[in-house]
């Protein structure tokens, strides 16, 4: 199988007051159709910059990002716009990523309007179907984002990302703003939708334990480079890079009998 997304030697940098910061330093990564790849790292490692470069929010300095056969680096805005059908984005904080002055219906339907898909009534029907599919009551479509809970808002974000039946959704910390019990609901929903629509996810997160459960493969990023990549169980059970080891050791295990933290006895 050939990869859906193929990133090669990608370099992204920013000019700052203190000089040029190389946020992504020669990253290569593949995502295959229908799979989930977890991209894990700490703040400032370049994972979000990498994600943004895939959806065109950051212009890479060099390297290549291919989606199927299309080269995304250097693509014109108009050419990129039609690619939105294939690549969508889910953000961390569903509150700041949804326009507070638009109803759930308007938010979910926007991609369909922009891409001029179907008639007006078909779009409305599609919105209701999407709302139902992500676990929102379709009769809430006239409500505004603030009338929904955090988990429900993230479902709006998911419905919106799903509206165009994309091949790839880049998810940047999609559940880290949510409560534990709601996190599980949203992750399970993403997994169900993947089975149903064969959508691939590139999931950017700091939460290695979560991604171990959710992703098929994990890429670990540090200081702008991918330092390790493998299947979830390989990376978790036999980490090869010292940084991966360090990340795993730092995770507080929910098991008081195995205290890995150097916590003194009470």
């Amino acid at each position: 199988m050939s990869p859906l997304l193929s990133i090669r030697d990608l370099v992204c940098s920013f000019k700052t007051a203190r000089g040029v910061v190389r946020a992504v330093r020669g990253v290569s990564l593949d995502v295959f159709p229908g799979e989930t790849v977890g991209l894990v790292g700490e703040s400032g490692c370049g994972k979000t910059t990498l994600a943004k470069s895939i959806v065109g929010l950051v212009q890479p300095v060099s390297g290549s990002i291919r989606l199927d056969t299309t080269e995304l680096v250097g693509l014109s805005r108009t050419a990129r716009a039609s690619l939105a059908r294939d690549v969508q984005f889910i953000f961390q904080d569903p509150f700041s990523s949804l326009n507070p002055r638009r109803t759930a219906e308007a938010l979910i339907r926007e991609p369909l309007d922009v891409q001029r898909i179907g008639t007006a009534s078909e779009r409305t029907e599609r919105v209701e179907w999407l709302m139902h599919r992500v676990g929102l009551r379709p009769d809430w479509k006239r409500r505004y984002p603030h009338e929904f809970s955090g988990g429900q808002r993230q479902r709006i974000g998911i419905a919106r990302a799903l509206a165009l039946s994309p091949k790839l959704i880049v998810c940047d910390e999609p559940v880290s703003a949510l409560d534990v019990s709601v996190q599980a609901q949203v992750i399970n929903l993403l997994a169900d939708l993947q089975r149903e629509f064969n959508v691939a996810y590139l999931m950017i997160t700091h939460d290695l334990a979560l991604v171990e459960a959710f992703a098929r493969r994990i890429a670990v990023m540090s200081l702008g480079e991918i330092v390790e990549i493998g299947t979830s169980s390989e990376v978790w059970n036999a980490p090869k890079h010292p940084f991966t080891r360090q990340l795993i050791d730092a995770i507080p295990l929910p098991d008081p009998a195995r205290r890995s933290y150097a916590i003194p006895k009470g």
Partner: protein
Amino acid sequence: MSSRPMLLEVRDLDVVLRGARATPVVRKLSFEIRRGERLAVVGESGCGKSVTSLAIMNLLPPALSVTGGSLRFDGTELTALDARAMRDIRGRRIAMVFQEPMTSLNPSMTIGHQIIEIIRAHEPVSKAAARQRAIELLEQVRLPDPHRMVDEYPHRLSGGQRQRVVIAIAIACRPDLIIADEPTTALDVTIQAQIMTLLTSLQRDLGMAIMLITHNLGLVAQVADRVMVMYAGRKVEEAAVGDLFDQPRHPYTRGLLAATPRPGRRFPDKVLQEIPGLVPSIYDLPPGCAFAPRCDLATERCSAGEPRLRSLGPGREIACVLA
């Protein structure tokens, strides 16, 4: 643990949100913390865990007020204190560490200045002596080059370093109790491990008690001696940390534990075990047990009346008619 002297005794605490109708936010909450003990308070957003800590500190926002119950700290009834007497306790005997170190530090004051301020607010020492103490405190929280650090502004520090400064301020007057509200939620996992290790070793060395407020059950397992689980403003379960993780009794506690990702654990047709539904709104609590609408085991009995909190042996309590 129970042989240690009592430090904080909360009895039947009621906190309400004022409005057209008073809405209960914390209901008949009772718990205690003994000297040197590490109590974790666990629950999801809106369960009342942070409100409880603000009530103890007498720092509730104007819309919230304590309408009943007692907060007894080392023999003193906190609810009866005037503002001045409370100021003397706050910061000196009970200190707080909040989630976001950037917002709890003053961006326009040097770190040293902020530590000196708290020392001089509580103790009659000279500026020079307080500055010397500030440098020692920065050393104690293992910040590099404390002599230089003391004159730095918060924005020059990383998130982890800022939280170390907040901890230095918290321990400046050797408090008996530190209330840490999601102290590492904004930090990377490796930094979280360092900060929690620092906080707990200081806690032991200085003989302080910690009330750790968190949603992270991993942290609870690593750090706590005892755990109180809250749901919709009430305590639903309390146990020693080992008992809680080995034999969670309340369906909510079990649900939370099952929903926490644990590497290697796989479910047949889903990624994680979820708790269905949503946390109820405080404006619209279901009759009877607040968790019943989300509970697999719920029967008619559960919505008949709110389950009484009952003891299941020493240090173990539960509010569920089924467990």
